[in-house]
């Protein structure tokens, strides 16, 4: 894993977002046929909720 990626993950985790889990969830949702709006809402919740762990 690159140093920059590690740093980003740490920063995001510090801000309440687990990007690895988020990526997995988003891809799983898209594979199940989620629309762009649904994915966008999911991301907004993760960003604004701040408790996406």
């Amino acid at each position, binding site marked *: 894993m690159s140093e920059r990626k590690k740093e*980003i993950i740490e920063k995001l985790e510090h801000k309440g977002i687990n990007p690895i889990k988020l990526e997995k969830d988003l891809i799983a949702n898209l594979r199940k046929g989620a629309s762009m709006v649904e994915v966008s809402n999911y991301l907004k919740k993760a960003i604004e909720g701040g408790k996406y762990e």
Partner: protein
Amino acid sequence: MNKILIELENIGAFRGRYAFEMAKGLNVIYAPNASGKSSLIAGLKVASIIAFMPEELKRFLNDYENEGFVKLLVDNNEVIIKLRRRADGMVEAIGKPLSDNGIVRKVAFVDLENELVNAIYSGDEERVKQILKEISGLNYLETILTIISGLRSEYEYRYQIKRREYESRKEEIEKELKETEMNLEAVRKRLNEILSRPEIEPVRKEIENIRQKQKEIEEQLSVYRKNEIEIKNAIALRDIDLKKIEADFKFFVEKRNKLLEEIESIERNLIEYRREIEKLSLEIKHLEMEKDTLLRELSDKKGILERRKQVIEYATCPYCGAPIDRKLLETKIIELESQISELRDKINDILLEIERRQKRIDELKQSGEERLKNVRKELSEISSKISELEQNKNNIENEITSLKRKLKDLENVIKQLEEEREILLKRLEMFEKEYPEVSTLVDEYKRLQIQEHHLMERRDRLHGRLKQLEEMHKDVLFEQNNVEKVNLLEEYFRIRLSEIKSLAVNRINEVILRHFKLLKLAELESPILSSDFELKLIRSGGIPTTLAELSDAEKAIFVIAITYALKEHIAEEFPFYVVDTLIEFIDDTRAREVLNYLMESVGDKNVIIVTKTKPYTGESTILTQNDILINEIPIK
């Protein structure tokens, strides 16, 4: 545990129950055509993958049976999937499969049903690209990045708007504050000037006393005014919270009322539902008994039919010694076959009736007791939410009452101080009358004092507005934080995109090139796949070629290399990798090299299954075009 057990009943070509044992590492299954190799793989698919449509499942269940199952035991993990034929002829699967990762079907089961295999064999390069992007998750990451990029613009815009509004308001207040301070300073300077004038001498001492007292009062007023502003701000904030709670409270109370109505309606119908369930259960019981009788009759008739078929060629019956009348026996056999067919139809009709009733029972349970249970559970959750909201509402209301009380006390204190200040002004007015020679100066002094008071009041209000802006600043910080998060997310997904591109693509290129070279197949120049999953097929020497031009063996090796590399990359945890039929396209010597590679790569980590119609010959020579023999068939 290295052993993997798979048990099948009525799956594909298998009628009845069969069990197979496999081990971690490579397993080559060889058997003649139509002997059940693909059925075994079908069983493994049923136990592994979640996303099968009823029409697909229909192919997995044996055509002559209505029920079947697959049992899989791997790493102490047991999976049982039951297949059941429905009344409409479709088949449904019951049970939780080994993996819920839908992509497993595309990378771990390489057979003629596989989408990627079909795209490669039909030479459709664009389709191959799309499937590869989908499998690797690349197109999803691209979609996510597009969405994040849109969100970033949205958050940036919101942040800039709020920041600008905050800064302009702050600037405006600070400017006003500065002006007020300057005016205040000018007023105070003038007040001091008046006090230093010699004409004021007769009243100087008195005025100085008044000034001192007024200063004290103004200082106190300033403190109380600040408190007053803070309390007013707190009340306004708590009012917002209260309104939000009241809206939630109203919403949940309405929801609770609806649930109560639903409970009442279910309870009214429940007795009726129970009666109908009892009646249907009894009917099912009778139908089951009828079915058992028919099954026994069917089994007896099957036995008789089998015996009659056995003895038809004999002159005398081996069971009773009576001479065989072949014609009569043939008639009896036809009669028996027709009776058996009728019995089967009757049994199927009964099964359909049972299923219909069972479905109705399930529906009744769903809309009756089960629904009641769920609604009650939901009601209890909503009731506790309502109590929680009520509690919060009471707390906030109490807090507001207490704050309002404090505000009232403060307002009284301020009022008292204002009255004291008025008395001081009155005293100044008295000096004007008592000492007419200084009345002009005293009058100016009095007006300046009033002005000073207003300016101080204004200054305190401006400080209060600055304090209010702190709330707005919190909003600005929240938006700023969102912008930071979205920027970090965008960078994270960009890194992931480039990682997937380089890791997956490099691995696929490496595996394909290695095999094509090792197996003396058409040597292709690197890279075969671009970082965007675009196929670039160039034969050594720079001659471009297409996927359609590759031989079947090359395509088979191509597809195995791609799927295996992708499987290791995105579904490593899935324990199986299956190649059904495709290995037949590759000659034994080359196939052995491919299998060796798979065997070495997998070690004892996972299970690789390859099917083949006959065992390997042991042939070890790689033939070239010159070695091809064409039988000459004479033309008559």
